[in-house]
């Protein structure tokens, strides 16, 4: 086993009176498949939402690739400069217009109101940023920053884009497509077309791999539950991620395809991808996982090899209920 790609330390999240995650601590090793199991309400999905940045934690630290998630999700310096500058310019213009218009000032005092407006605008933005940072601790809920760094997730209840075809669902995923820039759609059409062809070829390959190429042009909303699961898996794979969080990936997928899917996940693992999987199908999770983490009541109960877990008394009591 190599270094951990993800370190979770004392993670906490409460919803009103319910403590969903209560000090979970565990590591996920790079290039492994980690199973996350536990009874309903154990906090598995909440943990997923915290790790993928969709929820803001109430406490604890998650480190991805050695870096704090909050640090990855924090706005870049340039971003602050751009927004602060924009607010400054806007407020400055307003100040100038008000100075020249209703106040009826001449050029020099109007310049003063302009500057005052600009200072107010930029200062206001920075102060607001500072205040939000302080009020909410240091949390930033910007999960797309994590996805860009290769930490991606699927959803327990599939979230396919129902009005778009299966192919489009997949073609949406790849990062940094030139055609996602508005100006490029007008001025660099050849480059966009070329890239689009590549993306399309990859998406079609993915459809074939998941054996859903026959629904290529079907709106994703018309797909069956299992097909949607596959589509969602394909969509995150299109992102070329490093760590993939799968929330019940084989629920509703037929047994033979489940086998193929498992083989596929194992092969991807061997290629260096890391998986963390929540799954209720014990057979699947036992066979697939290198390590299994059992959660109960928001805490990690046990961690170990599948065989150890199978025979652990605490697990049997909490989960298998025997």
């Amino acid at each position, binding site marked *: 086993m190599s270094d951990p790609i993800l370190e979770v330390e004392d993670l906490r999240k409460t919803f009103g009176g319910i403590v969903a995650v209560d000090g979970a601590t565990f590591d996920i090793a790079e290039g492994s498949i980690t199973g996350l199991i536990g009874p309903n309400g154990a906090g598995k999905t909440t943990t997923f939402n915290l790790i*993928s940045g*969709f929820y803001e934690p109430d406490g604890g630290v998650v480190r991805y690739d050695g870096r704090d998630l909050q640090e990855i999700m924090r706005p870049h310096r340039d971003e602050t400069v751009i927004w602060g500058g924009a607010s400054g310019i*806007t407020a400055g213009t307003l100040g100038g*217009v008000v100075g*020249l*218009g*209703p106040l009826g000032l001449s050029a020099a005092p109007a310049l003063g109101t302009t500057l005052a407006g600009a200072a107010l605008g930029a200062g206001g933005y920075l102060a607001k940023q500072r205040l939000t940072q302080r009020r909410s601790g240091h949390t930033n809920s*910007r*999960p*797309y*920053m*994590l*996805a*860009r760094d290769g930490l*991606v*997730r699927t*959803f327990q209840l599939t*979230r*396919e*884009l*129902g*009005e*778009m*075809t299966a*192919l*489009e669902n997949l*073609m*949406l*995923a790849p*990062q940094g*497509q*030139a*055609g*996602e*820039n*508005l100006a*490029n*759609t*007008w001025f660099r*059409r*050849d480059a*966009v*077309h070329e890239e*689009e*062809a590549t*993306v*399309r070829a990859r998406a079609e390959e993915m459809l074939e791999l998941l054996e859903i190429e026959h629904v290529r*042009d079907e*709106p994703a909303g018309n797909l069956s539950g299992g097909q949607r699961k596959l589509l969602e898996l394909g*969509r*995150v794979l299109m*992102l070329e991620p490093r760590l993939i969080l799968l929330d019940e990936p084989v629920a509703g997928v037929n047994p033979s395809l489940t086998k193929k899917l498992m083989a596929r996940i194992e092969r991807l693992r061997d290629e260096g991808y890391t998986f963390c999987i929540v799954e209720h199908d014990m057979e699947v999770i036992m066979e697939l996982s290198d390590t299994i983490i059992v959660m109960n009541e928001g805490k990690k109960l046990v961690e170990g090899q599948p065989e150890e877990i199978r025979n652990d008394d605490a697990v049997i009591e909490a989960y298998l209920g025997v």
Partner: protein
Amino acid sequence: MAASDVVISFMLLVSIYGILSLGLNVKYGHTGLLDFGHVGFYLVGAYTAALFVLGPDDPTDFTAYVVGLGDVPVIGTWAVAILAATILAGIVGGLVALPTIRLREDYLAITVLGVSVIFQRVIQSETWLANGPDALRGYSPPLQSLFPLAMDTMVGPALFGLIVAVVWAIATGALGRLRDGDSRLPLSAVYAVTTFGLARLHRRTDGLGSLPTVGALAGLVAGLLSFAVLVAVDPLLTLGVLVSLYTWFVALVAVAHHYRHLGLREWAVGVALGTGLLVSLLPLPVVESVGLKSALTLGLLGALVVAYYLAVTRVEWVAAVKLTVVGVGALWFVALWYFLLPILGPLGDGDIAAALNTLFQNVVWVLQFGGDVGIDYAVVVIGDLTTKVDYSRFQLAGFVLFLAGLYYALELTVKSPFGRVLRAVRNDETVVKSLGKDPFVYKVQTMVLGSALGGFAGALWAMYAQGLTFTTFAPRITFITLLIMFLGGVGNNKGMLLGAGIFWAFQQATTQLASFFPPAVRVNIQAFRLVVIGVLFLLVLYYVPEGLLGRDEREVDG
């Protein structure tokens, strides 16, 4: 006014509202941002454009506005004004978006509605800004003083060449799309001729060989040719006839192609519907008594609707084409109104020559006839014609050119990966986030783009209306735009053009109908049509929630 002039002024409004609706469609149709304040950006565009072309204000004339740039060279021109209006509306759209865009759909709608009303009130109460509650006027549309065009100078032929270029480009572009659709006509041969041989560019695989490019180039050649011909000799009427006939030919081909799946009986039903509509309106000009003609018309209309309803519910093959036959009926009705009604009068008097003369005037729609100014022709059989190129046709050529360009640019955008992200945002923002894309950035860009289009439409409105009052920019405009969008098909750019066409056709038709009533009743009819529009909106939402054309989900072309 000849029927063609009515159509021209109708088309001007259609192109303004087409652009306005395209803007709203970017926001709601493609991205799912319900913007009830779209009129606010229309207002920003209109007033910005006006302030760019107006001369400095004059307190002795009781006008006051913040700045009038009309006398400044270059900056005070319409080109700069339209550009500035577009950019400023886009910026304002972005600024409005920043704080509001995080709100959920209905809250966003309400907030932006409020913003648009604030804009309106600012114009009204800030008297220094844009003349306050008084109308802002005193500017004229570009080049208007040159009209009607004098053909003995270089300018006249050049401007007419411009009109020909636009008309020709659009007709040729349409023909290029249709040329393989019908094997009974030698369309490809015609296309080869009307593109002046440029059709062979289609063999190229790069951008030069695309349909729009070839259409535009063909238009350019046609424009240059007509310029040259007009300078050398003076065949204005011949040119007008040629260009007009070409457009009618393309229009016929387009209609035949669009309804190619219909059998004879479906056509018959459509024609019967159109004729029925005309017949049920006949009492209006014929019967004297107001009560009687209203009762007769309403009764006949009711009978027509009942007949249609029965046919749709009882007869299976009618039900299968229920909307299509209405389309055929509408076209047939318009054709009767355009070609037949104007010549009924002269025909009734037995004056065949006068009837043909009127018919000719309507067929040659590119030129305006009548009046004292113009070039006189004496044509065999149909008699004397006084013809000229009037300003509204030139303006329409410009507006249509803008509309076509913006439509094309938008199609590129929504059929690109960018448009795909927009649709994904509309479907589910969480997914977009989970795939490493920031929905906020896309939503702001959408608001900027859609609002900029609204501003563009506003600038065109300022040009068209030649005067602005704040009351024009009431939320009503937003809801008309929404109606157009839902009518044509949410998320379908072509639907915006259709929707705008239907809405303004309805407006024009009711105005014409109202003229058959005494003034007191006329006012009531004008008010009543708002009710009808409301009912129409409900019917559309209930029976065809996807709009007439439905959502355009064609794949991104690769």
